[in-house]
């Protein structure tokens, strides 16, 4: 025990000594830091380069040099003009040298990519694909060019037990997703997620598309044909499916796929699942599910599913002459406490 304590004290003393010795040396070392205002630029654009130093010189001199293009300005902030510089997957280099009185020179390098002309720096930061719904009547194929293709699929017609869930799925679909035709006016097809719903006929007017009309005119045969293009056994539904290519034209199972199986989701929570699906489909890598969000949603669904059977359990308890669930919990806690 004493040996361990002594070793600990020695280690602490050594650490303290190292700190005292290295501290002043680190403070004395001069630093030169440089950075561009953005790492990627389009051909012909310019980028602002900045340099900082902690050298205690009244007027330090910064000497800039670049691999391509030219430098405009003097001092620690200059513009790098990239007019006439071609795009390249290899970054272009710039260098700054600090010349200060009675000091060794310091160098700092930085790199900037010149991207293709159509490069959009904000493309990766936007909210993702916007979902728009459309009906898919017989004989009509999915329009080409959309960023993503999604489907609300029912494997079989509803029965008394599943009707409420089907209705909730269609209602959420109609309520949460705007018309694809209206979104087409404002957004590029590549930025859209076309959510299709197969139907046996088109309605006389778009305003007549209601939950009841949709379920009445749903094309279950086409839905089965679309489901057959998916891997696994999907028999009942509702299913929400997303792929990069239209399912109706897919010769083989899609490489990237997102499937939400709503077959066991209580009707009250269907809207939550549709919302989660739309969020997931909006991601660039839509096939990679957010594990935390999926787990939380599954837990919430489990709570709801367990709660469905609770009144029956309580009734059964009463019929057997047993105390109800709250009394049972209290009894259990008491028993654990007495047992201790």
């Amino acid at each position, binding site marked *: 025990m004493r040996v361990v304590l002594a070793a600990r004290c020695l280690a602490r003393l050594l650490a303290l000594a190292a700190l005292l010795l290295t501290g002043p040396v680190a403070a004395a070392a001069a630093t030169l830091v440089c950075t561009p205002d953005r790492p990627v630029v389009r051909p012909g654009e310019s980028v602002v380069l900045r340099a900082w130093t902690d050298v205690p010189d009244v007027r330090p001199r910064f000497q800039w040099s670049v691999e391509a293009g030219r430098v405009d300005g003097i001092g620690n902030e200059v513009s790098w003009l990239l007019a006439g510089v071609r795009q390249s997957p290899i970054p272009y280099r710039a260098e700054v040298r600090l010349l200060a009185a009675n000091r060794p020179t310091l160098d700092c390098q930085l790199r900037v990519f010149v991207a293709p002309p159509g490069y959009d720096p904000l493309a990766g930061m936007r909210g993702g694909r916007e979902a728009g719904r459309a009906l898919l009547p017989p004989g009509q194929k999915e329009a080409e060019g959309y960023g993503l293709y999604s489907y609300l699929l029912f494997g079989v017609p509803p029965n008394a037990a599943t009707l409420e869930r089907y209705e909730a799925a269609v209602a959420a679909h109609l309520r949460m997703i705007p018309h694809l035709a209206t979104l087409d006016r404002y957004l590029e097809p590549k930025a859209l997620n076309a959510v299709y719903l197969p139907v046996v006929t088109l309605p006389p007017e778009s305003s007549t598309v209601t939950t009841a009309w949709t379920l009445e005119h749903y094309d279950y045969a086409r839905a089965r044909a679309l489901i057959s293009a998916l891997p696994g056994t999907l028999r009942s539904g509702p299913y929400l499916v997303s792929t990069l290519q239209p399912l109706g034209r897919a010769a083989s199972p899609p490489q990237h796929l997102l499937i939400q199986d709503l077959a066991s989701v209580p009707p009250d929570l269907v*809207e*939550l699942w549709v919302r989660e699906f739309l969020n997931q489909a909006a991601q660039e890598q839509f096939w990679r599910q957010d594990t935390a969000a999926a787990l*939380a*949603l599954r837990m919430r669904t489990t*709570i709801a599913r367990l*709660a469905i059977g609770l009144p029956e359990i309580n009734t059964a308890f009463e019929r057997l002459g047993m105390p109800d669930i709250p009394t049972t919990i209290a009894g*259990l*806690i008491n028993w654990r406490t007495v047992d201790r």
Partner: protein
Amino acid sequence: MRLTLLTIAALSLVVWLFYYGYAPLSTEETVVVVLACSVLVLAGRWAGRWLRRLWQRVRHGR
């Protein structure tokens, strides 16, 4: 007893509030949350006691 009840209540409240943001919970769902939290807390207490006994046995070399 009091500590167990308080732990169950606190855990149930946290879970209930967390899921309230998803969708408001019905009375039955609230009962399920309390039940699940009770089971968790009681199981935790039991496991803690068992681990403590095990540790004491290992410590005394028995």
